[in-house]
């Protein structure tokens, strides 16, 4: 019986179900209609000088994104500056990029994002 459980999941004791790939990619051709895109959130606190990346959220458009960010990441603290950016608009690089296979498309903010429409024919993607 005990092989059926793990202590994962933060609040522990999560049953291990049948082995199904977890959240690998989205559906082919992108998310279903109505799914909101991913925005990254940057916040600058009152006394700070720089915006800091704090996480992400989903919103249907920029205006909803910035207000949602206020609710979720600043709990409506006044005087906090917020930037929201579509994750797909971010161009990224890493200081110690060591993976030559990654280099050709080495500008995505995440290594395995779901929000890129990759054709099935591209190998190793």
């Amino acid at each position: 019986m005990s092989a059926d459980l793990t202590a994962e999941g933060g609040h522990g004791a999560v049953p291990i179900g049948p082995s199904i790939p977890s959240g690998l990619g989205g559906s082919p051709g992108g998310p279903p209609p109505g799914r909101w895109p991913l925005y990254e959130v940057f916040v600058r606190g009152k006394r700070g000088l720089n915006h800091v990346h704090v996480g992400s959220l989903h919103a249907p458009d920029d205006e909803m994104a910035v207000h949602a960010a206020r609710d979720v990441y600043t709990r409506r603290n006044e005087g906090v500056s917020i930037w929201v950016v579509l994750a797909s608009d971010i161009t990224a690089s890493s200081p110690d990029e060591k993976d030559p296979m990654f280099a050709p498309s080495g500008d995505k903010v995440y290594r395995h994002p779901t929000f890129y429409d990759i054709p099935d024919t591209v190998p190793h993607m």
Partner: protein
Amino acid sequence: MAGHEETVYDALDQAHGGEGQWAFGTGFDDPLAGVDTAVPDGVDASDLGAYCLMLGDDALVLSQRLTEWVTRAPELEEEVALANCALDLLGQARLLLARAGTCGVLGRSRSAATGSIPDEDALAYFRESEEFVNHHLVEVDGGDFAATMVRLLAASAYRLALFARLRDSRDPVLAAIAAKGVPELTYHRDYAARWVLRLGDGTTESHRRTVEAVDALWPLLADLPAATAVEARLAAAGIAVDPCVVDGEVRDVLSTVLEQATLEVPPWPTPRPSPGRAGSHTPGFDELLATLQGLAREHPAATW
């Protein structure tokens, strides 16, 4: 609770800015602590208390309706936003009910509850239906998300317009409550407006539902502009805001949003005396009160 975990949290707190404050800000304790609650000169205490109950009940009941959306919201972002609005309104209700208590308008509720519970709870949990003086607008069933957003838009536009003027009240407590509430209500109104735009001008289905929501809600707007005798007296004394003075502004806000949302603005209903303000409520209100009050009433001698 000394020990390992406490030390770890201190270290985490210091390592990450040490704000050390409750995630959503404070405000969980006595709402009027340290505030001079004397009734201003020349003002009838029971009038002032009755007015605080009106504004307080509007907030308490709407907060309760918004709270019904917890775990049922369309997305996690809306869970947080709706809970935010509900929490703001609950905070306003606590301040206003406490103020009503200092004016002595507790009536039967005070004897029904144990002496050690605060006035705000005596009023919230131990008044009967006919003693609640909120408008019907805030008590009707939330309906679907469109109905909730249309109602929130109307209720917060109205309340914001009142509070903006209430900041100049001769009662310093009401003025302070209003000053705190204005940014909150602005946020609620704008949140609801963003949604009404998207639902009105979204899909065919969302448009249809929003039209239905507007049609169902519109007659209730008739209750908002007419002042009760209490409000008229207090407005003349520079304490309260006569709701008729905000009517034009509220109409403008609602018309602007509806038109931009590609919705027809129905004809404005003829103002009538608010049945809610007179303690007469809709059939669903009894159930709302039963849920709100049931547990507390099972333990009338208890402090929580």
